[in-house]
């Protein structure tokens, strides 16, 4: 080497020569590292984007437009179709569960059965030949048909589908060649090969009961409703007699024959209602306790029917308020509670009874205005399992709506003649619409008709509610249940949880960070910081568990004490500080190491006092029982306002104090000795406390005497698992992360700034607030945002401690349901690809966007802060 250096002849400090070119291995490692880092960086970006994309991909079908497409030109003829004789106009039709058979009811009582595909006539039945039918009604989706005859009798017919499964050997050989999904007709029914390779035989069963004699005049209107007490039937004859009948079936044990028994009374219509017009429609509601008689101009009398069959007029409504319009279609939609009304001006609305107050009588109200001016509505059909409503028009158009979400789903045109009857198949995949010539079949693809942006984010008026509400209720026991899928209560719950936990956690975390970075010895700081950061590793399920099972019951028991501690502890701390500064300076330096102990003593004293005073405080402030007081049953709102206003009042007084009070002290400055100044300061503090209390009391009195009560908004009925408890527990969860980032931000402020400030004679407190915090502000802000992001996404704590009721209340003493907890609760039981499932994914997407936004804002601010702090 040495020789080398000499040979080269150039100067060398170390006597060695090094190659200027980097070694191969260095280059290799460098390239490898760069590739690896790039790959994993891009990989993680892709992973996150994929999560987002997947969520979007699952959610998107919620908003795809509906498909409504005509399948085959002419399914069946409806008018003069059947070879032998003309059949009068169709009044009703319905499909079987498999969308393979359709039966139609005609004005003369004829029932026809067709194959859906191809429209082949399979069966034809006239229930009671020879007597002319004068009133026809197919009521509900159970296949009950009511017929009224010219001779004043009525008859009930039950139309149903009989389905049986067979092996190839059971049926004629002709069906053996059927492949899966293929159909063939057989004995007035239809055979189809199921995916399990069986043969499914569907047949229409028509079971007609014996006629019931009502009067002598022709029956003109008839309707019935299945109730627990039997079938309630209301029929009106041409002479204006209203027949009320309750039908029960009894099986003859010997013959196996079903015999119908009817009881009831005959009433004269003019005794029952004020209006004298001729009714054109008669409907009976689901419970059989309301009878509606509508006239052509929409005037409708509502009659109440009690258990004994007595009728009384309760109200008159105008279903068609437009004076020029005439009522042309009236039908119940699923559940027989909501009434769809169509008129000849194209108005289409849905009505249901609404109770304005929980005790008042329900009143029929126009709730949904679906459409205007699309011609004369001639037929209405609804789905048996959802709020789909199909309207047929005189010009041959059909239009499909979802009632609750007000969503217009699509339209189609049959071109000739008015639509007389329409049907939506039970699976909501087929639609039949008939005019006088033909019955057209449409494919319907509307998997999520009840979802729209306004349904998700705006108040929706659900059946039975007094008004539009934000509600989340995804499932219930009954079939006719309307899922309520508003995201707003969940977003509200998320924000509520976040708000209360930040209210508790943010100040604590920030002040702790300030304290450790500015006031603690470096050595202590280096020990405390990791301890607080380990708090973050406490599983949130443990926190949630503690909150729900330990803290919630405890806080419920000692609510007054907890409220009192919130104010007593700071008071005692400040009192202690004021007393401390009155100590002579000499003992102060000696006692300095014991200061944390003094702080602890002050805290304990504050807690002890609040425990001691809780009883009297409850007596004075909350009329002896805080729970009843919160319920609003006893006491006045003044204490509530007082509790709410105490903190703002303290801030106000404190602010005034720094502006004015300090001058007072400084004026005394020279000449006074230490303990005198201390006394003065103590006096000032006590006076400020008194002023705070007086101010808060006065404001509380003002507010409550002007009639406002905080109960009902910020505080209300106490529920054990509530926002206060969640605030405490989740505050704990967010403290470590906020603390850690905030402490870093504060420590990043260079020491020479602190030195400059202290050197200029500033106190550590002034230094902290004037010099350290401003440049760290953006770091503190981003700490808050990241804490916010954590609180928004937190699941276990809220799941366990928030009660999970999706209500929207500001009340700190009530629970809520967050987006995240909702996902945890409902996603496991949601049927894949159902509306519910996709809506849950939408909730997840919302959560994703919320946390993404929060973290992005935090990061942008942080970058900005980094650029700024590099100048320091």
């Amino acid at each position, binding site marked *: 080497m040495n020789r080398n250096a000499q040979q080269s002849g150039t100067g060398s400090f170390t006597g060695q020569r090094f190659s200027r070119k980097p070694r191969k291995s260095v280059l290799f490692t460098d390239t490898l590292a760069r590739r690896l880092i790039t790959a994993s960086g891009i990989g993680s970006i892709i992973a996150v984007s994929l999560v987002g994309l997947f969520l979007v991909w699952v959610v998107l079908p919620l908003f795809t437009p509906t498909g409504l497409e005509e399948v085959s030109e002419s399914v069946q003829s409806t008018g003069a179709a059947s070879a032998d004789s003309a059949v009068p106009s169709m009044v009703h039709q319905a499909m079987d569960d498999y969308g393979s058979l359709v039966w139609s009811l005609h004005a003369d009582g004829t029932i026809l059965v067709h194959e859906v595909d191809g429209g082949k006539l399979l069966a034809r039945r006239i229930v009671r030949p020879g007597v002319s039918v004068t009133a026809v009604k197919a009521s509900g989706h159970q296949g009950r048909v009511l017929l009224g005859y010219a001779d004043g009798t009525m008859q009930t017919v039950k139309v149903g589908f009989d389905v049986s499964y067979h092996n190839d050997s059971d049926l004629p050989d002709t069906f053996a060649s059927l492949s899966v999904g293929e159909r063939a007709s057989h004995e007035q029914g239809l055979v189809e090969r199921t995916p399990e390779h069986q043969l499914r035989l569907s047949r229409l069963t028509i079971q007609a009961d014996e006629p019931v004699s009502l009067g002598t005049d022709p029956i003109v209107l008839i309707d019935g409703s299945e109730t627990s007490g039997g079938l309630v039937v209301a029929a009106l004859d041409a002479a204006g007699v209203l027949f009320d009948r309750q039908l029960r079936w009894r099986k003859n044990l010997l013959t196996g024959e079903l015999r119908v028994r009817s009881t009831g009374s005959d009433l004269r219509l003019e005794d029952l209602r004020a209006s004298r017009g001729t009714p054109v429609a008669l409907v009976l509601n689901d419970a059989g306790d309301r009878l509606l008689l509508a006239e052509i101009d929409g005037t409708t009398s509502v009659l109440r029917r009690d258990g004994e069959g007595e009728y009384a007029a309760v109200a008159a409504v105008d279903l068609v308020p437009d004076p020029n319009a005439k009522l042309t279609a009236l039908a119940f939609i699923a559940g027989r509670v909501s009434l769809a009304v169509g008129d000849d001006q194209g108005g289409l609305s849905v009505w249901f009874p609404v109770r304005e107050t929980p005790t008042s009588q329900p009143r029929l109200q126009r709730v949904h205005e679906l459409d205007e001016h699309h011609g004369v509505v001639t037929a209405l059909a609804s789905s048996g399992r959802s709020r789909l409503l199909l309207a047929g028009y005189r010009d041959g158009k059909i239009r499909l709506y979802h009632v609750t979400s007000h969503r217009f789903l699509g339209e189609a045109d049959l071109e000739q003649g008015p639509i007389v009857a329409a049907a939506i198949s039970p699976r909501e995949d087929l639609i039949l619409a008939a005019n006088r010539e033909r019955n057209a079949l449409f494919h319907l693809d509307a998997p999520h008709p009840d979802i729209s942006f306004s349904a998700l984010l705006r108040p929706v008026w659900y059946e039975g509610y007094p008004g539009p509400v934000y509600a989340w209720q995804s499932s219930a026991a009954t079939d006719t249940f309307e899922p309520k899928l508003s995201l707003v209560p969940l977003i509200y719950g998320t924000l509520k949880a976040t708000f209360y936990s930040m209210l508790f956690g943010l100040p604590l975390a920030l002040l702790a960070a300030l304290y450790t970075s500015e006031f603690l010895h470096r050595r202590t700081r280096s020990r405390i910081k990791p301890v607080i950061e380990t708090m973050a590793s406490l599983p949130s399920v443990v926190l949630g568990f503690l909150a729900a099972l330990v803290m919630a019951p405890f806080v419920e028991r000692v609510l007054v004490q907890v409220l009192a501690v919130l104010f007593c502890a700071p008071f005692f701390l400040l009192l202690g500080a004021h007393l401390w500064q009155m100590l002579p300076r000499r003992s102060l330096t000696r006692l300095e190491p014991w200061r944390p102990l003094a702080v602890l003593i002050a805290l304990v004293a504050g807690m002890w006092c609040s425990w001691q005073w809780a009883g009297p405080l409850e007596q004075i402030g909350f009329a002896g029982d805080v729970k009843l007081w919160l319920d609003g049953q006893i006491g006045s709102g003044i204490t509530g306002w007082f509790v709410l206003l105490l903190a703002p009042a303290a801030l106000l007084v404190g602010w005034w104090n720094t502006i004015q009070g300090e001058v007072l002290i400084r004026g005394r400055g020279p000449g006074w000795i230490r303990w005198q100044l201390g006394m003065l300061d103590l006096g000032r503090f006590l006076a400020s406390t008194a002023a705070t209390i007086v101010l808060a009391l006065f404001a509380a009195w003002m507010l409550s005497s002007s009639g406002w009560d905080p109960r009902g908004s910020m505080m209300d009925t106490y529920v054990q698992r509530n926002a206060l408890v969640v605030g405490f527990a989740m505050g704990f969860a967010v403290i470590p992360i906020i603390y850690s980032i905030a402490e870093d931000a504060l420590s990043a402020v260079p020491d020479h700034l602190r030195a*400059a400030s*202290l*050197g200029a004679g500033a106190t550590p407190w002034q230094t902290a607030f004037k010099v350290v915090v401003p440049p760290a502000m953006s770091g503190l802000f981003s700490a808050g945002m990241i804490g916010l992001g954590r609180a928004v996404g937190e699941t276990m704590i809220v799941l366990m401690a928030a009660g999970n009721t999706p209500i929207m209340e500001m009340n700190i003493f009530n629970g809520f349901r967050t987006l995240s907890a909702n996902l945890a609760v409902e996603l496991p039981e949601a049927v894949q690809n159902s509306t519910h499932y996709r809506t849950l994914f939408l909730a997840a997407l919302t959560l994703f966007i919320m946390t993404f936004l929060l973290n992005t804002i935090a990061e942008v601010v942080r970058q900005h802060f980094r650029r700024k702090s590099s*100048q320091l």
Partner: protein
Amino acid sequence: MTANEAKETQMAETKTMDRLASIAAGEIVETRIHPELAEEESILDISDFNLWYGEKQALFDVSMTLPRGKVTALIGPSGCGKSTLLRSVNRMNDLIDTVRIDGSMNLGEGNIYGPGVDVIELRRRMGMVFQKSNPFPMSIFDNVTYPLQINGERNKSVLRDVCEKALRGAALWDEVSDRLQESALGMSGGQQQRLCIARAIAAEPEVLLMDEPCSALDPIATTRVEELILSLRGEYTVLIVTHNMQQASRVSDYTAFMYLGQVLEYGPTARMFTNPLLQETEDYITGRFG
């Protein structure tokens, strides 16, 4: 140089080298204080002051007085404890956890390290300029008036007045008078340092402590600051640390020479630079070691 002279010099050199070696070995030598200092009215009395950073002692039995209204320079090789001594005067060393002290410093009548001393008040009586400029990330105006603002001064006209006077004093007024509300971080390094000087003199301190205030400045700015220090003489007592011998000779009335935590010689600048009592001082000033 004759052979004789050369030999004398060499002997003297070996002698100083011996002394320096023995100081390095831990010998405590007595400070040579020139008699002129006894005639000055002192504002700060340092006696037998020792300071430790943990186990390591940084100042050894420092005893000196600071004459009121005069500029005193602290010179000495790097790491000899000049900054430490300067920081001890306004107790900035308190910020370092490991620091322990012994001995006393008296400002007026009160002991700076006495038990009942209000450190905040003490620091308000002194202004400090650091080696590295450290303006706050605030406006120029807020920077200069910071010492007054933390003292509760809210009267805008007083603040404006003081700001102008201090900036003029620091020879900065003409450059920044039209952008007082702009951030101080947008100024040049030299301007920032002068801003810190303005901030230090804004509160009218009794003693101004300057730790190598010109080390980051260009010659023109250095001249400005030196002019400022000269103009402060009489009104303020200034203690300045510098590595620049010319600067010490230009601005200071008295000079103290420190070596390894001890003050070896302390006297009028003119004497120190022309005719010091100690050979070591002369050697250091002339650049023979350091």
